[in-house]
Each structure stands twice: as structure tokens, then as C-alpha cells.
């Protein structure tokens, strides 16, 4: 086993452990922090396969942005000390059987699939190529999804305003 394999399995173990902790922890702030480590692990995998841009985005957007956002919203809306209710034991058993069954099925199918090896295109994922792809409008260009996402964000902002907006006191029937 080479060094990279050892590093990969270490990262993978960290990711799996922290993902499990994130969904089983009964304190919500802890769950958010565990999630941070799981996301960091993903970034590490990207670094391993030389996707530096993706790794940086993963770190900045997910670890830096989204987890901080989650923690902020937890601090603003709920009590940190509050513990989540413990689910019934039959629920735990049933969901773990289902989860394990699903995981086994997926792993079985994926590991038994013969993936056709794609010839390397020889294109380096430099910032220039990424930028050209992102704003390209020919085949392989992503400008349309890029713009649709901006509409999605506008809609999400309007939605957030609607949810948060209060009526003025006199209209508060």
C-alpha cells in the first residue's frame, strides 16, 4: 500500500466517522461542527486528486460559508443546551437496518461495475480553462446554468424575506 492509499483511507475514515457523528449527535451545535470536519475531509480528497480549485471552493463555500451560516442560525434561533429527543429504539433499529441494507446494495453494485476508463483529455484544470468553461456557451460551457442559479438565488432571497417579514404592529391582527 502506497503513501497515497494510506492517506486516502485515513481521510475516508475521518469523513465516515464524522458524518456518522453529525447525524447521531443529540446536540445540534456539535452536529454542525462534526459536519465541518466531514466537509473538510471532502476538500482533502479533492486536493489528493489535484483538483485544487474545487478543493478551495469546497473549503471556502462549505466549510467557511455554509457551516458558519448554520452555526449562526443555530445560535440565533435555538438554545444550544437543548438536547434532541432520543428516538424510540425500534425506530433506531429499523432505520439502521434500512440504511445498512441500502449502503450494502449501493456498494455491491458500484464495486461490481466495470468502469470504462476514460482517456485523459490532456486539459489541465487551470483557472483559465475553468473560467472559459464557466462562461462558455458552446458544448461543455456552463453559462446557462450559471445564470439560472442567479435567478434561483434571487428567488431564494425573496422567499427568505417573505418568511421573515413581519406585519407592522397595527396590522398585527
Amino acid at each position, binding site marked *: 500500500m502506497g503513501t497515497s492509499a494510506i492517506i486516502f483511507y485515513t481521510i475516508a475514515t475521518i469523513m465516515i466517522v464524522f458524518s456518522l457523528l453529525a447525524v447521531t449527535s443529540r446536540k445540534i451545535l456539535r452536529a454542525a461542527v462534526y459536519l465541518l470536519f466531514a466537509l473538510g475531509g471532502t476538500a482533502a480528497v479533492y486536493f489528493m486528486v489535484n483538483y485544487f480549485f474545487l478543493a478551495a471552493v469546497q473549503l471556502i463555500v462549505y466549510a467557511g460559508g455554509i457551516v458558519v451560516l448554520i452555526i449562526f442560525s443555530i445560535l440565533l434561533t435555538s438554545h444550544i443546551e437543548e438536547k434532541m429527543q432520543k428516538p424510540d429504539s425500534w425506530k433506531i433499529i429499523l432505520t439502521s437496518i434500512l440504511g445498512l441494507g441500502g449502503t450494502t446494495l449501493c456498494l455491491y453494485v*458500484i464495486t461490481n461495475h466495470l468502469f470504462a476508463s476514460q482517456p485523459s483529455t490532456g486539459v489541465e484544470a487551470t483557472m483559465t480553462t475553468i473560467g472559459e468553461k464557466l462562461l462558455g456557451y458552446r458544448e461543455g460551457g456552463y453559462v446557462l*446554468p450559471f445564470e439560472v442559479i442567479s*435567478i434561483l438565488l434571487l428567488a431564494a432571497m425573496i422567499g427568505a424575506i417573505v418568511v421573515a417579514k413581519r406585519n407592522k404592529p397595527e396590522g398585527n*391582527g
Partner: protein
Amino acid sequence: MSLQELLLLRHEWALIASVLILLVLELNFSEEKKSNSISSASILFAIVTLLGFLPAETGSTFGGMYVTDPLRILMKNILNISVLVVFLQSGAWLRTKNNYNRITEFYLLMISSVIGVNFMISAGHFLMFYLGLELLTIPIAAAASYDQYKSKSAEAGIKLILTSAFSSAILLFGLSLLYGSTGSMYFSEMEFSTNSLQILGFVFFFSGLGFKISIVPFHLWTADVYEGSPTNVTSYLSVVSKGAAVFVLVLLLVNLFDPLRQVWQQVIYGTAIFTMTIGNLFAIRQQNLKRYLAFSSIAQAGFILLGVIGGSALGMASVIYFVLVYVFSNLAAFGVVIAIEQSAGKINMKDYNGLYKTNPRLSLAMMLALFSLAGIPPLAGFFGKFFLFTAVAESGYFVLLLIAVLNAVISLYYYLLVVKAMFINKSEFPVPYFQSDYPTRIALSGCVIGILIIGFYSPVFEYIKQLCLASL
């Protein structure tokens, strides 16, 4: 990139422009006149709908990410009309006191969602499909929690956003498996052979879309969200959101997933039976009309799946025709529920007792809508079901056909329950006589005319069938 290529996206441009115009218009309305945006939004959307009917170029652009053809344009037009009806029915509700400072936002959210619908239908790449799906759902989750002072509305919003996040995750996992096995996300480049990885990916994809169409076993959110949301949002969810997902399902199954036909026919065979039966059985027990229509719409989704199973042009055409009829029938039913809720604040079945004595025209509209949903001749719903059953018989699924016919009979029973309440049951305190506002009346009469006309005017079905044949 030429202007001509950009004009292929006409539906989307028109919708985006109307969002921007509304945003700017809203700024210019004074505080007391915010309700002006009700009429301006309706007029704007009517223009957008009309624009959609102008003859259009077809083709694909953005390197194949965006595809448009006459069939897709027809789908968009059907959905645009139904959104227009929803808008016309929403005026009275938006004018109520609790909504006075968020009238325009309702339209902005709805139109954004329609933009998502359009991009999803025209997708030529799974990324566009996924973005369209998200853009369709996220604004609606905000709209579902519009009634700020009702905890049920907040519950509906949170349930919708959580289930849609969950279903998106499943769908994305399926898509990543499909990408892993085909090496592309462009529909035109994906090649399917029935290996187990692709089957697994397809099943995940189908489950994700199944949440949107509320196919059993992915229907658990439906009744709660439909009940809690404002009724206008419910009618949008049950008609536009569901209709769009059905359209996309048909398009993708018949064109893209054709090599996996053996697989999806089995999947649909099972889910169709469960969806029809469970939807019907639960609908019988409902007293709240919104929950009742929720389960009725689940059962209707089961019937829709019947048409998909053949995967032929006839099946496709019968699905699109059925959705067209379903749009008018369901919107008419919801229109009556909305009108009565706004004037009397009642949504239970027993409140409808003796409605015919006080509001004969509304009762007639409701009766026609329910008869059409049940599939009683000579209304359009009958022809919708007839074509669906023909498509099933043509593909040779006779057991499925038998179950479907039995289910149609069961559904007749619970649709008649409401009719009985309105026309036969007596009540000491029926809903008093009232007149709804003009737009609601226009929308309701439009729906009733649709229910009556579409069935008899045979060129409609012929036209749809022709488009389907051309698209295969």
C-alpha cells in the same frame, strides 16, 4: 451566439422580464396602493401566456443544454395557462389584512417557480434539469408558509423544504451514478445499456422525481403540505408542480431512458397500482376538502402513470391530454374551495351541505369539476381516462387495466360524496350567498368551459398525438 439562438428561450425571457418589471413596478406603488400589483401581475402574466402561443423557432442552443420543440412549447403553454388561472384566483386572498405588505412577493415567487418549470422542461443536460427542479420547489416552500399566523402553514413550508431537500439528495445520488456509468450529463451523449449501476441510478432518479409527483410510497408529505399551505399555493402545487414533473418524466422516460424500458415498465407497474389504490382509499376518509383533494391528486397521479407505462406515442399523448384536462378540473375544484374559504372561512365537507340552495352556480362548477375528475361522460375527464386506458390496453397490461377501472369506480364514490353534500344534504346554516370578485369568476368560467369543450373538440388530442409522434 446569434440573437436568433437566444430567442429560442422566448418563454424564459418573457418570464424573467416579467419578474423584473414587477420588481420595479412595486417600488413605484405607494404604500396604500400595493394591491395594484395584483392586477398588474395578472395582466403581465396574461401577456406572457399569450406570447407563448406565437409561432416559435425550434432547436437547441447553449451547446445542447437547452432544447425546445413544439411538444415542449405546448407543455409550457398548458402550464402557463394554469398559472394564470391560479393568479386570477389569488386576488381575494392577497387583499386580506395579513397579506397587505407582501402581495408582490407572492407573484415574484410564483413566476420564479414557473421559470424553473420552463427550464426543467427544456433541459438537455441533467444540470439544467436539476436546477429547474430546485427553482421550481424552493420559492414554493416560501409560498407555502405564507400564512404567517397559522402554525399549520409554517409546518407546511418546513415539511415541503425538508422533503424536497431529501428527494433532491436521492435524485442527485442517482444522477451521479448515471454520470459515472455514462461519462456525460448531456442527454444526447448518454448511452444506456441495462447494467446494474444504471438501473440503480435510474431507480434513485425515479424516486427523486416521484416525490414531486407524489407517487406512493413518496407521497407522505402531500396531505400535510396541501392542508397547511394557503389554498392558492396548494392548487399551484397540485397542478403546476405536479404537471411539470409528469411532463419531464414522460419526456425523459420515452426519449432518454428508452433502453431501460424493461426496468421502468416494472417500476411504474408497481407504483401505479399502489398510487391509485392508496390515494383512493385515503381520499374516502377525508373530511377536510384540501386533504381530500390532496389524496384525489395522488390517485390521479396513479392514473397518469398508466399512460407512461406503454412508452408509445399514444401513451405520451394520452398523458399530456390527461394532464391538460386535470389542470382545468382540479383548478375549477380548487377555485370553488378558495372562493368559499375566502367568503365563509369553511373548508370541511359538511360545510358544503346545502350549498346548491344558496350558491347554485358555484355548486354546478364544483360538480362539473368533480365529475370530470371522476371521468363521467361527456366531460373532458372521461376522454382523458378513456385515452389512458386505451394506451394501457394497447400495451397489453390487462390486469393493470382491470385494477385501474376498479379504482376509477372507487374514485367515483368519493367524488360523489361532495356532490351529494352540495345538492342533497340539508343544512340549517348553509354557506350564505356571496359573489366572488371578477377575476375569480373569469377563472372559474374559463375552467368550466375548458372541461366542457376539450372533450368534444377532437383536434386537441389529434394535435397532441401528432406532436408526440414527431418527437419520438
